[in-house]
């Protein structure tokens, strides 16, 4: 792979990590969903570039799916959901921004060390893209762990999935069937979560996960 192609692919993968950090930094749900839309946008660009460089037309479909579903439809729908739930103002965090950022740095360092040591003999571009993809996955997990609000945990889960897509496209070859099935499973999960959220809200008047614990019957 020639220099400039290498660089652009790298650059887009790195931008995905940067946008993951931006997601960690966000305080308000509305802005978080916008940043997630940007996340999906960068993912779509990255997948499209991989399609161009690897000469694999089926990846263009993946890019279009990422663009349409994850960058447009899901954020817009979630926007409406949270406005109806009336929670579009604040996010409650378990740890502060500083600690979350430091933990994020540590996770990125960890994924660098792991990926670059384990894959000593692989193609250099693939190795480093995998390292970035693992970072995005870990940062998505970090977001799920450090937020109380169920919607932000869903956003973390979706960023995690974006990271997996990045890893799969970087590894040269992700059959369209897999992508379609993954996308549909996401859609189903999303519908279920949406219904769940409304039922929970109806029942308990809140979707703060910690408050839900109180009703589980296990006092802490």
């Amino acid at each position, binding site marked *: 792979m020639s220099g400039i192609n290498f660089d652009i692919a790298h650059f887009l993968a790195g931008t995905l990590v940067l946008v993951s950090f931006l997601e960690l930094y966000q305080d308000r749900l509305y802005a978080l969903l916008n940043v997630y839309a940007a996340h999906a946008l960068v993912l779509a660009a990255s997948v499209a570039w991989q399609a161009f460089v690897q000469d694999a037309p089926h990846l263009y479909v993946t890019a279009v799916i990422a663009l349409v579903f994850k960058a447009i439809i899901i954020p817009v729908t979630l926007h409406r959901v949270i406005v109806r739930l009336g929670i579009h103002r604040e996010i409650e965090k378990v740890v502060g921004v500083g*600690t979350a950022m430091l933990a994020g740095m540590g996770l990125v360092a960890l994924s660098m060390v792991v990926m670059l040591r384990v894959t000593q003999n692989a193609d250099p571009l693939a190795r480093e893209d995998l390292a970035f993809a693992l970072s995005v996955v870990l940062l998505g997990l970090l977001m799920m762990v450090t937020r109380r609000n169920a919607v932000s945990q869903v956003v973390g889960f979706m960023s995690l999935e974006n990271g997996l897509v990045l890893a799969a496209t970087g590894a040269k070859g992700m059959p369209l069937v897999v992508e379609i099935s993954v996308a549909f499973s996401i859609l189903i999960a999303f519908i279920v979560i949406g219904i769940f959220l409304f039922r929970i809200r109806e029942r308990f008047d809140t979707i703060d996960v910690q408050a839900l614990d109180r009703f589980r019957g296990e006092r802490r």
Partner: protein
Amino acid sequence: MLTIVLLCAAVLLVLAPLAVALAHRAAATQFVYGVSMIATAISLIAALTHLVAAASPENIVLPIGVPWLGSHLRLDALSAFFIVVIDLGAMTASLFALGYGRHETAPERVLPFYPAFLAAMTLVLVADDAFTFLLSWEFMSLTSWAMVMSHHRVPENVRAGYVYLVMASFGTLALLLAFGLLAGPDGLYTFAQMRAAHPSAVLGALALVLALIGAGSKAGLVPLHVWLPLAHPAAPSHVSALMSGVMTKVAVYGFVRIVFDLAGGPAWWWSIVVLALAGATTVMGVLYALMQHDLKRLLAYHTVENIGIIFIGLGLALAFKAHGMLFAAALAFTAALLHVFNHSLFKSLLFFGAGAVLTATGERDMEHLGGLIHRMPRTAFLVLIGCVAISALPPLNGFVSEWLTFQAILLSPQLPSWGLKLLVPSVGALLALAAALAAACFVKAYGVTFLGRPRTRAAEAATETDSYSLAAMFVLAALCLLVGILPGAFIDALAPVSSALIGEHMPTQIGAQWLSIVPIAASRSSYDGLLVFVFMTLSGTLAAWAIHRLASDRLRRAPAWDCGYPDASPATQYSATSFAQPIRRVFGTIVFRAREQVEMPPPGDTRPARLKVELHDLIWEAIYAPIAAGTSFAADRLNRFQFLTIRQFLTLVFCTLIVLLLVLAIWS
């Protein structure tokens, strides 16, 4: 040269008992400090000649001390450099004390120990065998302890002395074990024999850990630093300056001697330990300093931070040396040594300033001072130079050593180890953070103490200090400027030290274009302190001239504008605690569990509002308090053995005898 240095040390040792005899005479202070000053000045010149001439090491064996060993003494480049550092500090401290010592209330408790302290430090630096080294080290600790306890009626000084004694003994124990390991089963106690013995990797690692504990605790590495902020403020100001600016450097010498010279070739992971400790020390030191409002305690915590910076340089040198990158190691090593020199200069200057403030106002607490720039203008100017130097601002000397350390960090990506690849940039970030926080700390210290309006009667009544103190401060301030403007000469003077311990030295700086310094290559980076200074002066003068010609030069004094709400009470200006509040909220909530509480009385109540700030020293609470509690508990339990009956004592003796006989039976 070595004989001259030893003679001066002997003069100082003779002066100590003489001072005991003379202590109650009126002229004793002048005599003792005057002779100390002259002796240290001569010793300084001798050591400087040895260093600059890059002379070969000199050896002497004296027939005193242990019978079959004698006392081996050696002056090589490393010793010569450190002797220069301590004698410069000692000379200026003696000059300062000629004026300051007149205000000493109990001279007989300070005068005998002062020359002994100076002599002990010199002897540590020229010692060439383990016995002489440890003996002089302990002597140094004891004499400084005696001076810390000189005002023993003050309860916090008593506590300070106790903690100091415990930590010093603990450190000496560690060093004893280290030398024991290096000497081996054959008892090779001289340094020359240890060097030739080429210890194994395990032995070297143990020596490193013990040297870190022993020398590190004396230098002030976190978490062994706890005695430093208690003991340094308790001593008289010139002694504090010596302890902070000079004795910590003797500890650094001890570490360098053991780890770089005696323990054999460094393993790659040694630098990880040193760098991690050093990074933590740097940031913790300055954060502690920001929370203080006692001037001397603030300066003592700052010493901890600067020791961290020195050890960062030493850690980098170890990393480069272990991987065979000798030029980079020389750069890092020279940066660390230059910072040793710079720190002794500006820390002594700042402690002298604190001493001057203490004699003029009787106060050490910043919250009771203020407005001293009007009443002590010359002291204020010289202390300002010290503050600018310690905040690492160009064109003064603090910036040069920090710049060299950054250049060494920029050479580190070539290191192959993964741990170092992740640790070095983090340590670089910590160093930059500490430098910025240090500037904040000294804006606070200088601003609250010297600027603003006086907060108490004592501050209002302050007068300028005597000319001896001012002379001492002036010498140090001039040196700060000199090292900042002409760093090349000082870097070249360090070349013999670097050659001896690392094997390479930095490229010769004299002869570089326009007197700049070029640490690696001209295409990569360079810095010209002289040009920056000239540029700044020219720009400032040009601006002043242009303003004078083009603008109005009328000036009128009036009450402060204060946005239309002027208040005559000086209590409305910012205090040290309020100044540190934003930083306390950002960093202190995690590092010190800082909590603030404002008790606001209800409207109509005339009681003042109270601000309560709660800080926890987490290192003390996590490490030292449990150990102290455990020791107390064990001691209480063991105390019962004092009050047994005669029959029980006899039973004890009887059981011990039976056990020993059993051991003999089973093991023989």
